């Protein structure tokens, strides 16, 4: 991937609302070129989606998230990818990753309440034949998400004029 594409992606990854004109002003690349890069990378599936990072807790939305450790049994017919795809397709599944360590998949599940999440895991994840066992950790508070701190304990203390 060339440096120009990388720079455009970097800027968009920080703020998807920034316009091609502004990206052009920041980088010095012609605006049409920026538009072309964005169009191409959308087409290539490099740019997947433009989303907004929301602090749901602050918004007052009662959502429950849980991290589920999932251990699986592999077979000739069913490898990691097959099992992961099956789990990933549930809309309740917010994220799923294959990880190293004591278990195989780390699954993040989203639900309206504790019960909904617990039953989803019991009924839909644990019952998959390849799933050996699961451990559910309910998320109590999030401090940092996607590289963004969800708390602020620092302020700009600089003087207004410093030569």
């Amino acid at each position, binding site marked *: 991937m060339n440096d120009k594409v990388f*720079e455009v992606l*970097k*800027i968009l990854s920080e*703020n998807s609302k920034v316009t091609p004109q*502004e990206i052009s*002003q*920041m*980088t*010095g690349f012609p605006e049409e070129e920026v538009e072309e890069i964005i169009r191409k990378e959308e087409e290539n599936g490099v740019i997947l989606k433009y989303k907004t990072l929301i602090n749901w807790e602050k918004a007052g939305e009662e959502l429950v998230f849980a991290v589920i450790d999932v251990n699986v049994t592999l077979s000739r017919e069913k490898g990691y990818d097959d099992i992961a795809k099956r789990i990933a397709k549930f809309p309740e599944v917010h994220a799923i990753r294959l990880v190293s360590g004591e278990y195989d998949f780390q699954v993040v599940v989203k639900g309206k309440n504790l019960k909904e999440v617990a039953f989803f895991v019991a009924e839909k994840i644990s019952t998959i034949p390849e799933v050996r066992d699961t451990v559910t950790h309910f998320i109590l508070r999030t401090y940092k998400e996607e590289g963004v701190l969800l708390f602020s304990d*620092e302020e*700009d203390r*600089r*003087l*207004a*004029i*410093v*030569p």
Partner: protein
Amino acid sequence: MSPDRINKKVQEIKPSGIRRFFDLIIGRKDILSLGVGEPDFPVPWKVREEIIYSLEKGVTSYTSNHGLEELRQAISEYYRKFGVECFQKDVLITTGVSEGFDIAVRAIINPGDAVLVPDPSYVMYKPLVTLAGGEAISIPTNPDFRLNYERISEYRDLRPKVLILNYPANPTGVSYARRELEEIADAVIENDMLVVSDEIYCELSYNNKHVSIASLNGLGDRTIILNGFSKAFAMTGLRVGYNIAPPDLLDAMLKIHQYCMLCAPISAQIGAIEALKNEEDELEDMRAEYLRRRNYFTKRLNEILEVNIPDGAFYAFPSIQSTGLSSEEFTERLLLEKNVAVVPGNAFGECGEGYIRCAYAVSMEKLKEAADKIEDFVRSL
């Protein structure tokens, strides 16, 4: 009361040009300030964490006058990337470039020695030269704010002893490529001068990789390099910097430093070691972000005013001559009418008249808002 109560040289020093402006700002709320000459990034967390840890362990003593060996060693290795062959023994840890400059000029200036100071330039050089007993001579820079062989050579008859350099420069953002430095070096050698080179913004070079003038042929033995951690590692308030110099000059500076400062704060020195060890990536991100801001802001400014694209640092220095206002009128009205603070160019010397200094060490959102407001203001004139 006796008029001699205050030292004569101190009396001679004019109050800082931005003092009055500073008073205007006090008490005003919600100022959008492009007047801040320090990074808007906080000290990198790894650095802070290392300092906290050292405080918990009770590491709070003096260090040797020279500074911590590990830090001096790390700096000598780090500075090789700017072309300078230096070693631990060549490095003196200071409480920042301000102290570094003070002890440098005090160590080399005899009463009446002529010291060439570019105009415009950062506010501390001339007063500290005066206090050290030197004769500070302003050299007006060329219209593009650069110095060259001819400019410096014009002062030959004054038999100047020292040339002050600062690049990338505050307030103009000017920096020099190797061939330009070679020209300056020729003038330095011809006039048998010393160079005090303030390279505090060296990591914020956007066009060329920074080259230290001390790395050029014959200049190593004539140059005191001043640098520190304030700008590159956003460690302004921790007060830690360093001077790199040939042995006789370093010893002379050490004599002053040991009595007036003793040593730089140990916590800051420990943070500085961590900064050099582990902050290369954050530094890269910071530089990339400043570059985007520079591009954006100068592009916007150029639609309404005239501005050279800065080579480095985080300042834009646009001309406001087209508005017919003086620097002070412009900055004062911009503050009162739009609540945007910038620094009048004449605070940095007479040649800064007709210009304003805008620091783009603010977030892109704020920069955008400031550009909009400056644009509104200029169009309303």
